């Protein structure tokens, strides 16, 4: 009987010990929220996206939300970040805390003069690479109109190896309405830049009501 119990215990230990690397199956999402100019008014939509991400991400996944400001290549712009616990109950608690942080952020939001998307991308890539998640996604909630301040240098090749880029709610500017080629060129330029940087995918989602599933990679 002792032998039998020992065998059972050893079997369970072996089975549990043979666990694979959970990070390969996990997802990490870095969401950039444009807070420049009039786009800051879109924060309500951004909150909905964040709530969707919170509802969809699983225990073990990572999520970070950062704002795009005049210069965004800084940890200070990260509003909230979390790697969910492996236990579902703890993960639920963390999601609640994250939600309240985002609510606070949406109340205190202030529009900025410039939009440093490249800096945000660089910061996001750095964060995602640190998580060592299996699937890494940068969600850009912006009109994709980059406006850099004086002294901000971003015209150099960036590295986004193994990262999906999802552009959300890319609204048309007044100039875009006058000449749609500007809008299309802007998007094409960003896509080309992202692919050159090594991004695995470039997805654009403007229909937030019906196409939210495209934000995350299906597992």
């Amino acid at each position, binding site marked *: *009987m002792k032998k*039998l119990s020992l065998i*059972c215990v050893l*079997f*369970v230990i072996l*089975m*549990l010990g*043979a*666990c*694979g*690397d*959970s990070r*390969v*199956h*996990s997802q990490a999402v870095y969401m950039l929220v444009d807070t420049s100019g009039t786009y800051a008014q879109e924060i309500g939509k951004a909150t909905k996206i964040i*709530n*969707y991400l*919170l*509802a969809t991400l*699983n*225990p*073990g*996944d990572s999520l970070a939300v950062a704002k795009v400001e005049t210069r965004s290549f800084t940890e200070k712009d990260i509003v909230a970040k979390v790697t969910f616990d*492996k*236990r*579902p*109950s703890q*993960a*639920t608690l963390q*999601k*609640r805390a994250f*939600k309240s942080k985002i609510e606070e952020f949406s109340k205190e939001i202030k529009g900025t003069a410039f939009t440093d998307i490249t800096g945000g991308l660089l910061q996001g890539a750095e964060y995602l690479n640190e998580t060592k998640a299996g699937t890494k996604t940068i969600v850009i909630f912006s009109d994709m109109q980059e406006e850099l301040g004086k002294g901000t240098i971003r015209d150099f090749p960036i590295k986004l190896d193994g990262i999906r880029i999802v552009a959300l709610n890319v609204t048309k500017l007044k100039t875009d309405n006058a000449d749609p080629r500007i809008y299309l060129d802007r998007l094409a330029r960003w896509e080309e830049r992202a692919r050159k940087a090594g991004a695995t995918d470039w997805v654009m989602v403007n229909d937030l009501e019906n196409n939210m599933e495209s934000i995350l990679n299906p597992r």
Partner: protein
Amino acid sequence: MIDWHSLLFWPDQVALSVLALAILVMLFLYAARRPMHGVIHSTCHLVTQSTRFLSRWLFLVAENMRLRNQSVLLSHSQENAATVIEREFERVGNIIRKDMHEFPALQRKLTEEVTRIEEDYRKCGEVPPPPPEWVDAIESVSNLKSGGDVPRKLLEDIGKSIQKIHDKIVSEYRRAYEDRHKILKGMQPSWRSVDKAISEMDKKMLTLQGNAKQIDGHMAKFEGMRAKDAKTENALTSSAFVQLAISALVMVIAMGGAFINYKLIALPMSEMVGASDYIGDNLKTSDVAALVIILMEASMGLFLLESLRITQLFPKIASMDDRMRHRLMLASLIFLIILAAIESSLALMRDMLISDKASLMRDLASVAPAAEDGWFTRIPMAGQMIMGFVLPFALAFVAIPLESTVHSLRTVIGVLLVQTLRGAAFLIRFIGVLFKRIAKVLELVYDIPIVIPVMIEGWVVASRSRPPEIAPATPERPAKKGSAS
């Protein structure tokens, strides 16, 4: 692309070239006729012989397998029958030990009672003898011729005395009868109890007789197995098929139960081993852990039934001494109860996790929280907990159909293998026969394109083998009429 014109002798004259080519081919084929016939014949013969050999070997293997299956089947069935007979004898022994050991005492008692009743009955039936002396005295007195009133007085005195004595005797007699009736009345309950005991004994004797008949039936089967007769073997084989079908059905039902069990504990197990851990590419650790728990429950159930000697999959457990076996039984039962309790608590946790997640989803969707619906919202939770506790015990009984499946599957697979081997042997033998016949067909097919040279050869051979013809004698011409003259 092959340029067909290059094959022609005279490209300008296609028909002539084709004819020349055909004649050449025909000549070549005719020249190669004997070796080709030889090749066809040898090849087909080789295939026929090989298939025949293979077929024989397969039949032999099938027969050996059948004998082995028969031996295993009969030995296993003998073992089972012996166990059943042993149980029947045990039952009979118990009946005899429990009920029949009082039989001699009861019989003795019954005999005594019956003897006493008989004696009493005999006594009750006795009539007091008339006093003969008085009759003689009366007769003598009545014969007296003289004496006047003396004889009458004497007779009256005697009559009075007789009457007195008679009354006394009759009253004593009646008292004696009363006493006997009292005795008989007192014996009535004991007689009834004796009657009841006898009828019970009769019933038990009938049960015993039934058991004896069953033992006779089992013994007849056992003898059939010992004699290895085909009828018994067929009956056992078909019984194995039926057993397999029944146990497979029960196993499927049990698997359904195990699936529900798995669903109950897979989610809460992620709380213990983590929801994001994987074994391999797609297998969640929490799912595997839930499966392990279920398998452990089934194993504990198996050990429990083994130690109770309900199943006999492990001879080592069956051969354990009783004390050790009881310990194993106790340990298995305790483990099973612990696992059932764990599962019940996991079921509770599942409910909590689901409601927690639902609440979070409501928060994220900015929907008002659901109103508390009262006690009946707790029913699913209670149901889950009860199921979590009960299902492991239900799962424990899977050991019985499992044992049945294991034993019958061996027979069924054996029979199917034998049939497959026989089928394959037949097919191969058939192919061999086909090749034997096909040799002649191929030879004839080969001869079709060279039919002209073959015919010429036939004529030549025929003409050569024909014996030299004797020139027919020229019939003498009949002399012309008139010439002789």
